[in-house]
């Protein structure tokens, strides 16, 4: 019985780690609904219909999105529009956007 419980624990842990949802502090406090609302600001430019000039980000890895936004926020990546957008986002908002865009179909 202990063995079964242990196996179950391992499987669940692997699943959650695989999804990047447990051991990733960048995504702490993420709120899916809030991400959906905030995404409106991004969707004016970022759409799947085109990758020309502005990258399509739907379905991108959540941690990747969060890291990029933090780099823009810290002005370590260039682009005035993105620096402006990211500068107005706090940690929870970045995490919320990251999980929301990750959930969208590529």
């Amino acid at each position, binding site marked *: 019985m202990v063995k079964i419980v242990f196996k179950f624990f391992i499987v669940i842990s692997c699943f*959650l780690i695989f*999804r990047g*949802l*447990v051991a990733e502090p960048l*995504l702490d406090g*993420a*709120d*899916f*609904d*809030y991400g*959906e*609302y*905030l995404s*409106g*600001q991004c*969707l*004016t*430019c*970022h*759409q*799947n*219909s*085109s*990758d*020309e*000039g*502005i990258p399509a980000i739907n379905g991108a890895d959540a941690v990747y999105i969060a890291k990029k936004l933090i780099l823009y926020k810290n002005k370590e990546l260039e682009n*005035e*529009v993105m*620096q*402006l*957008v990211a*500068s*107005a986002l706090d940690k929870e908002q970045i995490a919320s956007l990251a*999980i929301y865009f990750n959930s969208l179909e590529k």
Partner: protein
Amino acid sequence: MNNLSRRSFVSFTLASTSLLAMPAISTGSARPKVVVVGGGAGGATAARYIAKDSKGAIDVTLIEASKHYYTCFYSNLYLGGFRDYDSIGHSYDNLSANHGVNVVHDWAISVDSSARKVRLGSGATVSYDRLVLSPGIDIKYDSIDGYSVEAQTKMPHAWKSGTQVKVLRDQVLNMPKGGTFAMVPPPNPYRCPPGPYERISMVAHILKEKNPTAKIVVIDPKNKFSKQGLFMAGWEKYYPGMVEWIDNDTHGGIKNVNPETMEIETDLDTFKADVACVVPAQRAGAIAMNAGVTDGDWSPIVPASMQTKADGNIYVLGDASVASAMPKSGFSANSQAKVAANHIRGELTDSRVFPAKFSNTCWSLVATDDGIKVGANYRAGEEKIEVVDKFVSKTDEGNAKRKKTYEESIGWYNGITTDMFS
């Protein structure tokens, strides 16, 4: 709470709420009704977001006279030959097919705000629980002595996209060799602050190739304009000696225009043009006036929601609103539409309402592969929409960066039109 369980919890909560709410929304007639007037960057976005995000819980009707919408943004690029006309035209088919928006191609004639009904050109009425007005601008034809509805074929304003821009392009292409193109920009506040100056750039771009001895004279009712240093440096770089910009203090004021003689009279001088683009003063679209939600020429709004100050059931978006620090642009209207859509859903279906967040970027094209931009973030203050932070392109940033900015604007055009019409 980790994210997986939060999402599951949210889904479960939504499912439970839907079940509880079933009796209220199971019949079409019982669904709350939102009517949106005007299918531009504000209205099409609002209709799409309310329908999409409420997942059928709200009955959305979009009233728009045109079957094909030609965007004002990028109409200057059509004028300059960088886009073909069809590429700036869009249909509303996907809003019905993908989101169940009831698109009615008609004019909204009047609003009875106490009965909450909109009367259409056909004579039919549509009732609403919440009304979104996004009518854009009306041209104040009588704001320039000598200008009129009839004058607009001789001296096109071309400020609402569509056929007027076609007329202007034909006139520029057929201008006599060595002729004069005159531009009269509008006084503040007006739709698309950098628009007149991007237009001058696009006309200069055509003339440089097809009519290099032609001149452009800009008779401005203002003493300064958006992205002025960037535009003027661009004109000097790409079209040296072609563009003469005359500010209001220098010419002393525009007294009148004469479409028959193609003359523009100021205190300083009378300018004779071969082609003239005359853009008069503007005001909120007539339906906002009719609904009684304007104060003077524009409609004051509550910054946190875009509800009008005059009537909480009526929202005004985009050019027609007094959005204070936000310019009258398609990007602004699209941004405001999302704030309003979130608020309306909250009011009608008890969905979560998040704090208003606004943004805007205006890209302009100065010459081939030379794009510039200005942008800002905004917050909802108590009385006004306020700037949080802003940026503008730099004069010395180099060709590679300018090319990238232009390419970014193409991405934005594809993005915003997908956000409005898909």
